[in-house]
C-alpha cells in the first residue's frame, strides 16, 4: 500500500514538455530518492504534488493519490490545508526560504496559527519542542533569533522544524543539503533519517548526488529529461543498474587517483607566508579597526605539470588565497614564479607577466561578459599580450583554442547566454588558454555543474595538462573531485593550513582530526557504493 502515488504525470511549459509520463510510489515510513541532473524535472514532479507549479506550467496526470484522497479533485482551500499540513516541504536554499524579518518563533508558529489555530502560548511551547526535535538548543533565546544570526546548518534545521510543525505524513526535501558544507550536510541528513524513523515519516528526497542517496534512501527513482529511467530499491538499482543512463550516472562520480610526480620535477611557483587581512568594523570612533585574517601564513609550492588541490569549507579563505596569488588583491608574503619575484614587479611588468598565470572562476554565468561574442571574449587576452597579430591571425588562434577545448569553431559568433554551464566553462578555459599560461588557477571550476558534465570538464583539464604541461591550482570543497585530479592537496581552515601532502597520503591516512572529519563526511556515504562497484 503506497502513501503517495503519481501516475502518468506530464508537465509542459508553453512549447516544451518538462516532465513526461512520470510515475512514482512513496511507501509509508520509507525514504524515496528522486535522482537526476539539473533540468531533469525532479523538482517539478515534487512541486506538482503540492500544486505549487509555476503559473505558466500546465500539467495533467492519470492519477495523483495521497493515501485515499484524489489530489486532483481538491479545491483551492483543501489544497492549501494540505500544504504545510499533511505534506511538509524543505527547500534547497535556507537563506532565501526564511523571511529575514521574522524571528525563528514567528517562522515556525506561522503554520501552527494557520493550520491549527493555536494560541500564542501553546504555539511557543510547540516551537520549543520542535527545536528539541531538530537538535537545536530549545531556549527562548533561540526562538528570538533572526535568520542572519543562524549558521547555514541551523537555518536548515529551522526549515525542518517548520516542515514538521503540523505533524505531516510526508516530507518533501528538495536538495536539502546542496547549499551546505560537507560536514554540516552529514549532520542534517542524519537528522532527517532519524526523524523518519522516530516519526514514521515518508520522505521524498530530491537530489542530484548519488552518494547521499545510496546511504539514506530505501527506494530510488532515476529521472532523465523529464522521463523516469529506472526505479526500485536502492541496493538493486545501484548494484545492478539496468539502464545505460543509470550506469552513466554512477560512473560520473569522480574516480581514479594520480601518482605523485617524480621528486626532480622543477618548481614553478613558490609562495611563502601568504597572508591577507581585512579591516573589520571599528567598535568605537577612534579605536583601531580589528583585523580579520582571511589567509594566515600559508606556504605552498607547485611544480611543473602538477595539480595542487586546495580544500576547505566555505569561509576557509581558499578563494582569497587564489586572488592573492593572482595578485588581484593586496597581500603579504613572497610569491616566486619561475625564479622571478612577482611581488617586486612594476605595474607594467606585472601586466606582461599576467599571461603566465590565468584563472577560471566557479560561476560559468558570471564569468563571461554577456554583451560580448564568444570570439571577442576568447580574443580579449590576445589584444593585450599579442597586439601585433592581424585580425586573421587572431581569428585563427581563437579557432584553434576553441577546438582544443572541444567546442566547434563556429561558436565564436554566438553569445554566452546560448550555452550550457559546461560549455561556458569550456569557453572560460579557452579564454585563459589562449594566453599560453604556465599556471591555471581553477576556483571551484566544476562546482556549479552536474556530475556528468563535471566529469567531462575534469577529463578536459587532465588532457590539457598532459598535452601542455600545465600546472593547476585547483580549489574545491568537493573532496571526490580533488582526489580524482590532484597530485597534492592542501587542507585549509580559517585561513590556516591544516594539512598538506600527497593526495594519496592525505586521503588514505589523514593526520589531523579536522581532515579526518572532512573525509568521513565526504566518503562515508559512498563506501557502500564503492563496495558495490
Amino acid at each position: 500500500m503506497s502513501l503517495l502515488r503519481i501516475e502518468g504525470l506530464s508537465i509542459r511549459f508553453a512549447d516544451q514538455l518538462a516532465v513526461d509520463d512520470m510515475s512514482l510510489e512513496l511507501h509509508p515510513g520509507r525514504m524515496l530518492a528522486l535522482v537526476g541532473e539539473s533540468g531533469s524535472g525532479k523538482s517539478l514532479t515534487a512541486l506538482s504534488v503540492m500544486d505549487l507549479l509555476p503559473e505558466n506550467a500546465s500539467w495533467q496526470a492519470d492519477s495523483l493519490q495521497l493515501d485515499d484522497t484524489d489530489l486532483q479533485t481538491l479545491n483551492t482551500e483543501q489544497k492549501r490545508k494540505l500544504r504545510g499540513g499533511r505534506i511538509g516541504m524543505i527547500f534547497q536554499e535556507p537563506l532565501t526560504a526564511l523571511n529575514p524579518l521574522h524571528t525563528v518563533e514567528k517562522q515556525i508558529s506561522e503554520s501552527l496559527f494557520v493550520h491549527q489555530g493555536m494560541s500564542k502560548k501553546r504555539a511557543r511551547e510547540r516551537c520549543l519542542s520542535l527545536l528539541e526535535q531538530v537538535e537545536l538548543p530549545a531556549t527562548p533565546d533561540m526562538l528570538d533569533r533572526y535568520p542572519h544570526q543562524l549558521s547555514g546548518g541551523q537555518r536548515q534545521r529551522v526549515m525542518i522544524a517548520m516542515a514538521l510543525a503540523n505533524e505531516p505524513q510526508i516530507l518533501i526535501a528538495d536538495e536539502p543539503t546542496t547549499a551546505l558544507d560537507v560536514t554540516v550536510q552529514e549532520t542534517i541528513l542524519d537528522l532527517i533519517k532519524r526523524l523518519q524513523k522516530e516519526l514514521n515519516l515518508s520522505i521524498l528526497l530530491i537530489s542530484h548526488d548519488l552518494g547521499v542517496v545510496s546511504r539514506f534512501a530505501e527506494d530510488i527513482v532515476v529521472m532523465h529529461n523529464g522521463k523516469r529511467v529506472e526505479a526500485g530499491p536502492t541496493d538493486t538499482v545501484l548494484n545492478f543498474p539496468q539502464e545505460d543512463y543509470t550506469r552513466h550516472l554512477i560512473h560520473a562520480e569522480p574516480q581514479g587517483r594520480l601518482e605523485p610526480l617524480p621528486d626532480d620535477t622543477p618548481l614553478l611557483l613558490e609562495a611563502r607566508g601568504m597572508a591577507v587581512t581585512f579591516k573589520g568594523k571599528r567598535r568605537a570612533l577612534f579605536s583601531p579597526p580589528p583585523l580579520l585574517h582571511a589567509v594566515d601564513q600559508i606556504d605552498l609550492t607547485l611544480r611543473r605539470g602538477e595539480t595542487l588541490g586546495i580544500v576547505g569549507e566555505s569561509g576557509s579563505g581558499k578563494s582569497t588565497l587564489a586572488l592573492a596569488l593572482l595578485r588581484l588583491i593586496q597581500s603579504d608574503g613572497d610569491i616566486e614564479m619561475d625564479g622571478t619575484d612577482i611581488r617586486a614587479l612594476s605595474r607594467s611588468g606585472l601586466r606582461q607577466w599576467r599571461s603566465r598565470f590565468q584563472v577560471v572562476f566557479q560561476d560559468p554565468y558570471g564569468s563571461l561578459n554577456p554583451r560580448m561574442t564568444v570570439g571577442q571574449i576568447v580574443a580579449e587576452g590576445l589584444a593585450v599580450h599579442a597586439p601585433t597579430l592581424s585580425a586573421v591571425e587572431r581569428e585563427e588562434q581563437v579557432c584553434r583554442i576553441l577546438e582544443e577545448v572541444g567546442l566547434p569553431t563556429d561558436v565564436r559568433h554566438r553569445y554566452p547566454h546560448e550555452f550550457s554551464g559546461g560549455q561556458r566553462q569550456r569557453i572560460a578555459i579557452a579564454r585563459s588558454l589562449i594566453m599560453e599560461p604556465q599556471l591555471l588557477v581553477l576556483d571551484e571550476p566544476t562546482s556549479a555543474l552536474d556530475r556528468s558534465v563535471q566529469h567531462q570538464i575534469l577529463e578536459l583539464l587532465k588532457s590539457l595538462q598532459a598535452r601542455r604541461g600545465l600546472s593547476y591550482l585547483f580549489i574545491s570543497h568537493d573532496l571526490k573531485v580533488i582526489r580524482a585530479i590532484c597530485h597534492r592537496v592542501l587542507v585549509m581552515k580559517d585561513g590556516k593550513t591544516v594539512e598538506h601532502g600527497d593526495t594519496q597520503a592525505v586521503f588514505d591516512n589523514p593526520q589531523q582530526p579536522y581532515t579526518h572529519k572532512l573525509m568521513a563526511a565526504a566518503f562515508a556515504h559512498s563506501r557502500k557504493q564503492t563496495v558495490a562497484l
Partner: protein
Amino acid sequence: MAFRNPLMRNPVWQRQWQAFRSNKRGYWALWIFVMLFVLSLGAELIANEKPLLVSYDNELYAPVFNTYPETTFGGFFESETNYRDPVVKDLINDKGWMVWPPIRYSYNTINYDLTVPAPAPPSAENWLGTDDQGRDVLAGLIYGFRISVLFGLMLTILSSIVGIIVGAVQGYYGGWLDLSGQRFLEIWSSMPTLYLIIIISSFVVPSFWTLLVILLLFSWMALVDLVRAEFLRCRNMDYVRAAHAMGVRTPIIMFRHMLPNAMVATLTFLPFILNSAVVTLTSLDFIGFGMPPDAPSLGRLVGQGKANLHAPWLGISVFATLTLMLTLLVFIGEAIRDAFDTRKFLQ
C-alpha cells in the same frame, strides 16, 4: 522597421529593442516625439516671415537661406527685403510669384494688421491667435519647442557625460576617493540652485550657452549615484576579475566590461533628465531669468498667458504643448525602463 546597425546585432540589445517595441504606448510616443522634433528642426520652413521661394524676372531666390536687398526686386531700400510689405508683395507678384510656408510668421514677427487690439484671438491668419505684442502664438510654440528640446538634449548629454565619468571613477576606485566624492555631492546638491542661478544671471547676461553651463553645474549629479552603484557592483564580477587577470588595462576594463552595465541605468533615466531640463528652462524663462528677451521661449509664453487671463488661447495652447512634450517623454522613459527590466525580459 528593421534597424541594421552594429548595436542591433547584439542579442541583448535586440531583445531590449523588441521589448521596447512591444510597449505600444512608448513606441508610438517615441515616433511622435521624433517626428515633432525633426519637424521643429525645420521650423524656418514651416513658420517664417520670408517666403520659401521667390521667382522674380525668371530668376529663383530662396530668401530663407539668403538675404536679398529690396533693390533686387525693384524696391527703393538697400536693406533686407521685408516680404510682408504690401508694396514689395505687389512688386514681386507683378514679375513672378512667391511660395510661402504654411505659417507666414516667425516667432518674432509682429502682425501690424490686426483688426483687434493684441492679444488677438485665433483667426484664419493667426491660427492660435497672437500674444500681447501681436506675435503669432503657433510660430512661437514651434520655435519654443525646438529650443527647449535642443537645450534639454544638450544639457542631458553633457550632464550624463560628466555624471557617468564621476560615478565610474568613484565606484571603481572606491575608498577615500568615493567617500570624499559622496560628501562633496551631498554639499553641492544642497545648494539652493534657483537662487544661485538668479544671482549669477544678475552679473552674467544669460544666453543659451551661459545658461547651459550654469545649469550643468548643478544637473550632473543625477546619474552619479546610479553609475557609482553599478560600478561598485561590477568591479567584483568574475568577468572583470578575469580581465584583470589577463592584464587588460583599467580604462579598457571600465569601458568594455563595466560601462555597458551602467548604461542600462543611464538610458532608463535619460528621458526623465531631459524632462527636468526642459522644465527648468521653462520655469527660468517664466520668472524672467532665462533666455534673452528676443529668443523664442515656452516659458515666456506661459508668462504671457498668466499676464493675459482674458486671452485664454495663450495659456491653453502653451499648456497643451508642454503637456504633450512632457507626457511623450514620460511614456518613452517608462517604455525604456520596462525594456531594460531584466526580471521581465532576460530570463
